[in-house]
């Protein structure tokens, strides 16, 4: 798919996780091993879905990749090795988490503002990101005036505004209704195809993982370990019809069985 003319194609960033382990200790309680011995190799420009039961430690793994939490053991490396390049990552939370006092445009421009970019550059990039998620008409509205789906789109635009090379999403659409969720899935998949960024998408929905990703990684219940790494054998062009396709049913069954054994 051709990159859009207004935006240079962002190049993806590879991630490699080796032997990652994270233990949460709190006084008076037994240690909780959230992640134990996880190895994961995510290729440049891949779309990987990380699938696991609720509370299995997949969020912890994602936070460690984002650098928001440090592993107790193991290594996380980016690209050809070493730390993540500056400003290469973006993170989408489970809920929108917008600043209620800022309008959509200013919320989306926030990451650039924190990075110290010029106001005109911020404005243009934010406007572009808002258009990418189909919210151009709502740029001046405040979060309280938006529906849950629209807020999540703003959150997605805020992540895209820095043109990240690696986009991390932590069950981003779990709180939305099915229709809105599928719309956002479609949009995310299209954005991935046009930008060439690497996407790591955490979800507990088998159908969502199969619909979105090129590869699926299934994790066990806490502590999180990889039980299946599976390349999804599905066409590159994903649309609503695919959800009724026999191939889709077969792939979801593979993932379902892996989850069952986990």
């Amino acid at each position, binding site marked *: 798919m051709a990159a859009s003319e207004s935006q240079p194609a962002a190049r993806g960033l590879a991630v490699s996780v080796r032997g990652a382990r994270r233990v949460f200790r709190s006084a008076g309680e037994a240690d909780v091993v959230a992640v134990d011995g996880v190895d994961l190799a995510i290729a440049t420009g891949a779309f990987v879905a990380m699938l696991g039961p609720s509370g299995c430690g997949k969020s912890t793994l994602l936070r460690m990749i984002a*650098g*928001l939490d440090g592993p107790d053991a193991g290594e996380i490396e980016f690209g050809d090795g070493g730390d993540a390049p500056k400003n290469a990552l973006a993170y989408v939370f489970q*809920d929108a988490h917008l600043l209620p006092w800022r309008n959509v445009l200013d919320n989306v421009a926030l990451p650039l503002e924190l990075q110290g970019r010029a106001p005109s550059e911020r404005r243009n990039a934010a406007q572009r990101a808002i258009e990418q998620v189909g919210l151009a008409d709502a740029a001046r509205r405040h979060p*309280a005036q938006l529906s849950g789906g629209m807020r999540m789109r703003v959150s997605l635009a805020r992540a895209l505004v820095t043109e990240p090379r690696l986009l991390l999403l932590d069950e981003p659409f779990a709180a939305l209704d099915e229709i809105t969720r599928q719309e956002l899935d479609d949009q995310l998949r299209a954005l991935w195809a046009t930008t060439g960024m690497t996407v790591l998408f955490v979800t507990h929905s088998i159908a969502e993982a199969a619909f979105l990703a090129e590869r699926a990684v299934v994790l066990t219940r806490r502590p999180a370990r990889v039980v299946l790494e599976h390349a999804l054998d599905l066409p590159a062009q994903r649309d609503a019809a695919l959800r009724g396709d026999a191939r889709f049913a077969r792939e979801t069954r593979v993932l379902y069985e892996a989850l069952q054994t986990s």
Partner: protein
Amino acid sequence: MSAAHRRLLEAVLPPAATFVLTTAAAEFGIRAAGISPLLLPTPSAVVRAALQHASTLLPALAMTAQAVVIGLSMSIAVGLLVAIALSTSRWVERAFYPYAIFFQIVPIVAIAPLLVIWFGYGMRAVVAAAFIVSVFPVIANSLAGLLSVDPALRDLFRLYGASRAATLWKLSLPWALPNVLTGLRIAAGLAVIGAIVGEFVGGGGLGVVVLEAMRQQRTDLVFAAVLHAAALGLALFAAVNATSHFALRRWHSQEKDP
């Protein structure tokens, strides 16, 4: 009639009706019971005293108002700075917050003479009294707001390499604004109390009018002065509410909890 007009009417009419009814009841009740004006003057006598002594009451009100506004401004500035300092680390909070409570428990009546010893008679002691009683609600509420910042948003700021100053300015302070305004609403009423008590000892303003009127057994004038003080508190409260409404008008229905 527009919806806005009707809402305004619905807000104003019930308290206004209560006011008219209780005032009328007091006027006729006091007259009928034959209560001495030294104990309880009728509302009409209080209004007469207020008009008669307007040349004393209004400058006194202005003086008290000035002390309250200065004291309250200091409470906002100092209270916010203290809350920011306390919010920087759990250890700082643990070490100093118990002592901030000092401002909450100090009996202002008891230490007012001390303020006169330190600051002399007049405005400075009165401002100090207004400040001391009003600073704690600002500290406590601002701190609660600063500590309640959405952890996900903190993560977001960290991810994009925001400095501490940027995080404070663009996240923590705006996030705490509703709490700061709540503290201010409480502080406004307390500052008036502090100023009047300060004036009892330090001189000037409505506090002295009350003392003088009491000495002259002019209960009607005491009431008139008290009503002026109440009006001042009410005006401050309304000002904070208006600020709050204006500053937070876009936040409505936005849940704050993560």
